Protein backbone atom coordinates (compact mmCIF):
# COMPACT_ATOMS: atom_id res chain seq x y z
CA UNK A 1 0.00 0.00 0.00
CA UNK A 2 2.85 2.34 0.85
CA UNK A 3 4.47 1.92 -2.56
CA UNK A 4 1.63 3.34 -4.71
CA UNK A 5 1.01 6.14 -2.19
CA UNK A 6 4.66 7.11 -2.24
CA UNK A 7 4.66 7.06 -6.05
CA UNK A 8 1.57 9.24 -6.17
CA UNK A 9 3.12 11.66 -3.69
CA UNK A 10 6.29 11.87 -5.77
CA UNK A 11 4.24 12.44 -8.92
CA UNK A 12 2.30 15.23 -7.26
CA UNK A 13 5.58 16.84 -6.21
CA UNK A 14 7.00 16.73 -9.73
CA UNK A 15 3.85 17.85 -11.56
CA UNK A 16 3.92 21.54 -10.52
CA UNK A 17 7.60 21.75 -11.47
CA UNK A 18 6.79 20.50 -14.97
CA UNK A 19 3.80 22.82 -15.31
CA UNK A 20 6.01 25.80 -14.44
CA UNK A 21 8.67 24.93 -16.99
CA UNK A 22 8.71 27.90 -19.37
CA UNK A 23 11.94 27.10 -21.21
CA UNK A 24 10.48 25.87 -24.47
CA UNK A 25 7.75 28.54 -24.45
CA UNK A 26 10.34 31.27 -23.85
CA UNK A 27 12.57 29.85 -26.57
CA UNK A 28 9.77 29.85 -29.15
CA UNK A 29 8.57 33.35 -28.28
CA UNK A 30 11.95 35.04 -27.82
CA UNK A 31 14.56 33.14 -29.84
CA UNK A 32 13.00 30.95 -32.52
CA UNK A 33 11.76 33.83 -34.71
CA UNK A 34 15.36 34.44 -35.85
CA UNK A 35 17.28 31.32 -34.75
CA UNK A 36 14.40 29.09 -35.98
CA UNK A 37 12.81 26.21 -34.11
CA UNK A 38 15.76 23.88 -34.71
CA UNK A 39 18.35 26.54 -33.85
CA UNK A 40 19.97 26.48 -37.29
CA UNK A 41 19.50 30.23 -37.92
CA UNK A 42 19.58 31.69 -41.44
CA UNK A 43 21.97 33.57 -43.69
CA UNK A 44 21.79 36.64 -41.38
CA UNK A 45 21.40 34.88 -38.03
CA UNK A 46 24.05 32.65 -36.41
CA UNK A 47 23.28 28.97 -35.83
CA UNK A 48 22.91 27.98 -32.17
CA UNK A 49 24.48 24.64 -33.04
CA UNK A 50 27.78 26.57 -33.39
CA UNK A 51 27.69 27.03 -29.59
CA UNK A 52 29.33 23.62 -29.41
CA UNK A 53 32.54 25.20 -30.83
CA UNK A 54 32.86 27.34 -27.70
CA UNK A 55 31.87 24.67 -25.17
CA UNK A 56 34.27 24.58 -22.24
CA UNK A 57 36.36 27.52 -23.50
CA UNK A 58 37.08 30.35 -21.05
CA UNK A 59 34.64 33.22 -21.43
CA UNK A 60 31.99 31.22 -23.33
CA UNK A 61 29.65 30.87 -20.37
CA UNK A 62 29.50 34.65 -19.83
CA UNK A 63 29.40 35.41 -23.58
CA UNK A 64 26.29 33.29 -24.14
CA UNK A 65 24.29 35.42 -21.68
CA UNK A 66 25.87 38.72 -22.81
CA UNK A 67 24.99 38.42 -26.52
CA UNK A 68 22.27 40.98 -27.40
CA UNK A 69 19.56 38.40 -28.10
CA UNK A 70 19.90 36.87 -24.63
CA UNK A 71 20.83 39.91 -22.53
CA UNK A 72 18.05 42.10 -23.98
CA UNK A 73 15.31 39.43 -24.06
CA UNK A 74 12.17 40.63 -22.25
CA UNK A 75 12.55 37.92 -19.59
CA UNK A 76 13.24 38.08 -15.85
CA UNK A 77 16.69 37.01 -14.63
CA UNK A 78 15.25 33.77 -13.25
CA UNK A 79 13.43 32.88 -16.49
CA UNK A 80 16.51 33.75 -18.60
CA UNK A 81 18.70 31.58 -16.31
CA UNK A 82 16.30 28.64 -16.74
CA UNK A 83 16.14 29.23 -20.51
CA UNK A 84 19.96 29.36 -20.78
CA UNK A 85 20.34 26.08 -18.84
CA UNK A 86 17.86 24.43 -21.24
CA UNK A 87 19.33 26.07 -24.36
CA UNK A 88 23.01 25.30 -23.65
CA UNK A 89 22.19 21.65 -22.99
CA UNK A 90 20.07 21.40 -26.13
CA UNK A 91 22.36 23.21 -28.59
CA UNK A 92 25.88 22.94 -27.16
CA UNK A 93 25.25 19.35 -26.12
CA UNK A 94 26.18 19.59 -22.43
CA UNK A 95 24.49 20.99 -19.31
CA UNK A 96 26.13 24.14 -17.93
CA UNK A 97 27.99 23.16 -14.77
CA UNK A 98 27.19 24.75 -12.40
CA UNK A 99 23.75 25.77 -13.69
CA UNK A 100 23.14 29.47 -14.39
CA UNK A 101 21.43 31.28 -11.51
CA UNK A 102 19.30 34.44 -11.58
CA UNK A 103 22.08 36.35 -9.77
CA UNK A 104 24.73 35.35 -12.30
CA UNK A 105 22.45 36.23 -15.22
CA UNK A 106 21.65 39.60 -13.62
CA UNK A 107 25.37 40.40 -13.26
CA UNK A 108 26.20 39.29 -16.82
CA UNK A 109 23.36 41.05 -18.64
CA UNK A 110 24.18 44.34 -16.92
CA UNK A 111 27.62 44.27 -18.62
CA UNK A 112 26.72 44.36 -22.35
CA UNK A 113 29.20 43.40 -25.07
CA UNK A 114 30.48 46.21 -27.29
CA UNK A 115 31.44 43.86 -30.12
CA UNK A 116 29.87 40.40 -29.80
CA UNK A 117 31.40 39.08 -33.06
CA UNK A 118 34.95 40.05 -32.04
CA UNK A 119 34.44 38.57 -28.59
CA UNK A 120 33.26 35.32 -30.10
CA UNK A 121 36.30 34.90 -32.31
CA UNK A 122 38.59 35.68 -29.36
CA UNK A 123 36.88 33.02 -27.22
CA UNK A 124 37.06 30.57 -30.11
CA UNK A 125 40.80 31.11 -30.44
CA UNK A 126 41.04 30.89 -26.62
CA UNK A 127 42.62 34.35 -26.27
CA UNK A 128 40.20 35.53 -23.59
CA UNK A 129 40.94 34.31 -20.12
Amino acid at each position, binding site marked *: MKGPLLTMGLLLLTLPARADAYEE*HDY*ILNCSGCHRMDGTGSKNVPSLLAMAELLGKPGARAYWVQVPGAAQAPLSDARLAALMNWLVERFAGSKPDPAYTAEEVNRLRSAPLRDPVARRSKIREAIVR
Partner: protein
Amino acid sequence: MSRIDRWFEGMSRQSARRVSRRSWLSRFGGVLMGGAALPLLPVARAAEKHQVGEDGVKGREGDPRRCEYWRHCAIDGFLCSCCGGSHTACPPGTEMSPVTWIGTCRNPADGIDYIISYNDCCGKTFCGRCMCNRNEGERPLYHWYRNNDINWCGGAKTQTYSCSTAVVVKAAKEAQPEK
Protein backbone atom coordinates in the same frame (compact mmCIF):
# COMPACT_ATOMS: atom_id res chain seq x y z
CA MET B 1 -27.96 -16.01 -63.61
CA SER B 2 -26.91 -15.31 -60.06
CA ARG B 3 -29.38 -14.69 -57.26
CA ILE B 4 -28.36 -11.02 -56.96
CA ASP B 5 -29.08 -10.43 -60.65
CA ARG B 6 -32.52 -12.00 -60.28
CA TRP B 7 -33.21 -9.91 -57.20
CA PHE B 8 -32.23 -6.68 -59.00
CA GLU B 9 -34.30 -7.62 -62.04
CA GLY B 10 -37.32 -8.25 -59.79
CA MET B 11 -36.89 -4.93 -57.97
CA SER B 12 -36.49 -2.99 -61.25
CA ARG B 13 -39.55 -4.57 -62.84
CA GLN B 14 -41.60 -3.97 -59.69
CA SER B 15 -40.63 -0.26 -59.50
CA ALA B 16 -41.22 0.17 -63.26
CA ARG B 17 -44.80 -1.16 -62.77
CA ARG B 18 -45.57 0.95 -59.67
CA VAL B 19 -43.66 4.23 -60.10
CA SER B 20 -43.85 6.60 -63.06
CA ARG B 21 -40.60 7.97 -64.51
CA ARG B 22 -41.61 11.55 -63.77
CA SER B 23 -42.24 10.70 -60.12
CA TRP B 24 -38.73 9.20 -59.83
CA LEU B 25 -37.15 12.24 -61.49
CA SER B 26 -38.95 14.67 -59.18
CA ARG B 27 -37.86 12.76 -56.07
CA PHE B 28 -34.26 12.48 -57.27
CA GLY B 29 -34.24 16.23 -58.00
CA GLY B 30 -35.62 16.90 -54.53
CA VAL B 31 -32.80 14.90 -52.90
CA LEU B 32 -30.18 16.76 -54.96
CA MET B 33 -31.55 20.23 -54.13
CA GLY B 34 -32.20 19.34 -50.49
CA GLY B 35 -28.66 18.06 -50.07
CA ALA B 36 -27.27 21.29 -51.50
CA ALA B 37 -29.39 23.34 -49.07
CA LEU B 38 -28.27 21.41 -45.94
CA PRO B 39 -25.22 23.58 -45.16
CA LEU B 40 -27.52 26.62 -44.95
CA LEU B 41 -29.33 25.13 -41.96
CA PRO B 42 -28.27 26.33 -38.47
CA VAL B 43 -27.46 22.72 -37.54
CA ALA B 44 -24.73 22.59 -40.17
CA ARG B 45 -23.29 25.93 -39.08
CA ALA B 46 -23.18 24.79 -35.42
CA ALA B 47 -21.14 21.76 -36.49
CA GLU B 48 -18.46 24.09 -37.93
CA LYS B 49 -17.50 25.05 -34.36
CA HIS B 50 -15.77 21.73 -34.00
CA GLN B 51 -13.80 21.90 -37.18
CA VAL B 52 -10.05 21.65 -36.97
CA GLY B 53 -7.83 24.21 -38.71
CA GLU B 54 -5.15 23.33 -41.23
CA ASP B 55 -2.56 23.35 -38.44
CA GLY B 56 -4.66 21.24 -36.05
CA VAL B 57 -6.10 23.96 -33.81
CA LYS B 58 -9.74 23.33 -32.92
CA GLY B 59 -12.30 26.08 -32.72
CA ARG B 60 -14.46 28.39 -34.75
CA GLU B 61 -12.21 29.28 -37.61
CA GLY B 62 -13.84 32.53 -38.66
CA ASP B 63 -12.77 34.07 -41.94
CA PRO B 64 -8.98 34.14 -42.42
CA ARG B 65 -9.50 36.74 -45.15
CA ARG B 66 -10.63 39.29 -42.58
CA CYS B 67 -8.34 41.41 -40.44
CA GLU B 68 -10.55 40.70 -37.38
CA TYR B 69 -9.72 36.97 -37.54
CA TRP B 70 -8.28 36.01 -34.14
CA ARG B 71 -4.84 34.91 -35.40
CA HIS B 72 -4.19 38.32 -36.92
CA CYS B 73 -3.93 40.15 -33.56
CA ALA B 74 -0.30 41.16 -34.09
CA ILE B 75 0.00 41.09 -37.88
CA ASP B 76 1.30 43.89 -40.09
CA GLY B 77 0.94 43.22 -43.80
CA PHE B 78 -1.21 41.81 -46.58
CA LEU B 79 -3.13 38.63 -45.70
CA CYS B 80 -1.88 35.71 -47.82
CA SER B 81 -5.41 34.25 -47.75
CA CYS B 82 -6.46 37.14 -50.04
CA CYS B 83 -3.40 36.73 -52.27
CA GLY B 84 -3.71 33.21 -53.64
CA GLY B 85 -2.37 31.46 -50.56
CA SER B 86 -3.95 30.80 -47.16
CA HIS B 87 -3.29 31.84 -43.54
CA THR B 88 -0.83 28.94 -43.30
CA ALA B 89 0.55 28.68 -46.84
CA CYS B 90 2.27 31.04 -49.26
CA PRO B 91 0.81 31.87 -52.70
CA PRO B 92 2.36 29.97 -55.63
CA GLY B 93 5.63 31.49 -56.76
CA THR B 94 6.60 32.81 -53.34
CA GLU B 95 8.82 31.37 -50.62
CA MET B 96 8.11 31.38 -46.88
CA SER B 97 10.76 33.31 -44.99
CA PRO B 98 12.57 31.12 -42.45
CA VAL B 99 12.92 34.01 -39.97
CA THR B 100 9.76 35.50 -38.61
CA TRP B 101 7.98 37.76 -36.14
CA ILE B 102 6.33 35.76 -33.36
CA GLY B 103 3.59 36.81 -30.93
CA THR B 104 0.58 35.42 -29.09
CA CYS B 105 -3.17 35.74 -29.80
CA ARG B 106 -6.16 34.51 -27.78
CA ASN B 107 -8.48 32.10 -29.59
CA PRO B 108 -12.04 33.17 -28.64
CA ALA B 109 -13.29 29.61 -29.29
CA ASP B 110 -11.38 28.04 -26.39
CA GLY B 111 -10.02 31.08 -24.47
CA ILE B 112 -6.44 29.82 -24.89
CA ASP B 113 -3.49 32.00 -25.97
CA TYR B 114 -1.58 30.55 -28.90
CA ILE B 115 1.92 31.36 -30.16
CA ILE B 116 1.51 32.68 -33.70
CA SER B 117 4.31 32.80 -36.25
CA TYR B 118 3.75 35.55 -38.85
CA ASN B 119 5.98 34.14 -41.58
CA ASP B 120 6.24 36.47 -44.56
CA CYS B 121 5.96 35.15 -48.10
CA CYS B 122 8.68 36.52 -50.35
CA GLY B 123 9.68 36.55 -54.00
CA LYS B 124 6.84 38.35 -55.78
CA THR B 125 5.88 42.00 -55.65
CA PHE B 126 3.63 43.07 -52.74
CA CYS B 127 0.12 41.64 -52.96
CA GLY B 128 -1.79 44.85 -52.15
CA ARG B 129 -5.00 43.12 -51.00
CA CYS B 130 -6.42 42.81 -47.44
CA MET B 131 -3.93 45.10 -45.67
CA CYS B 132 -4.10 44.36 -41.94
CA ASN B 133 -2.15 46.35 -39.37
CA ARG B 134 -3.20 45.36 -35.84
CA ASN B 135 0.21 45.21 -34.14
CA GLU B 136 -1.04 44.24 -30.67
CA GLY B 137 1.99 43.82 -28.41
CA GLU B 138 4.36 45.36 -30.94
CA ARG B 139 7.23 47.53 -29.71
CA PRO B 140 9.31 50.23 -31.47
CA LEU B 141 12.18 49.34 -33.80
CA TYR B 142 14.83 49.53 -31.05
CA HIS B 143 13.04 46.51 -29.48
CA TRP B 144 13.80 44.57 -32.65
CA TYR B 145 12.68 41.25 -31.21
CA ARG B 146 9.15 42.66 -30.82
CA ASN B 147 8.99 44.81 -33.95
CA ASN B 148 7.24 43.80 -37.14
CA ASP B 149 8.28 46.72 -39.38
CA ILE B 150 11.48 44.80 -40.11
CA ASN B 151 11.44 43.17 -43.54
CA TRP B 152 11.41 39.57 -42.38
CA CYS B 153 12.09 38.49 -45.97
CA GLY B 154 15.73 39.24 -45.06
CA GLY B 155 16.17 35.53 -44.34
CA ALA B 156 14.66 34.35 -47.63
CA LYS B 157 16.31 33.94 -51.06
CA THR B 158 14.66 37.07 -52.41
CA GLN B 159 13.85 39.99 -50.15
CA THR B 160 10.74 41.21 -51.98
CA TYR B 161 7.81 41.13 -49.55
CA SER B 162 4.54 39.73 -50.89
CA CYS B 163 2.17 38.88 -47.99
CA SER B 164 2.02 37.47 -44.43
CA THR B 165 0.73 34.19 -42.96
CA ALA B 166 -0.39 33.47 -39.37
CA VAL B 167 0.67 29.94 -38.41
CA VAL B 168 -0.13 28.53 -34.96
CA VAL B 169 3.06 27.13 -33.40
CA LYS B 170 1.51 25.74 -30.22
CA ALA B 171 -0.49 26.80 -27.15
CA ALA B 172 1.28 29.53 -25.16
CA LYS B 173 1.92 29.16 -21.42
CA GLU B 174 1.11 32.81 -20.95
CA ALA B 175 0.16 35.76 -23.18
CA GLN B 176 3.05 37.75 -24.61
CA PRO B 177 4.13 39.96 -21.68
CA GLU B 178 4.07 43.18 -23.75
CA LYS B 179 0.29 43.00 -24.10
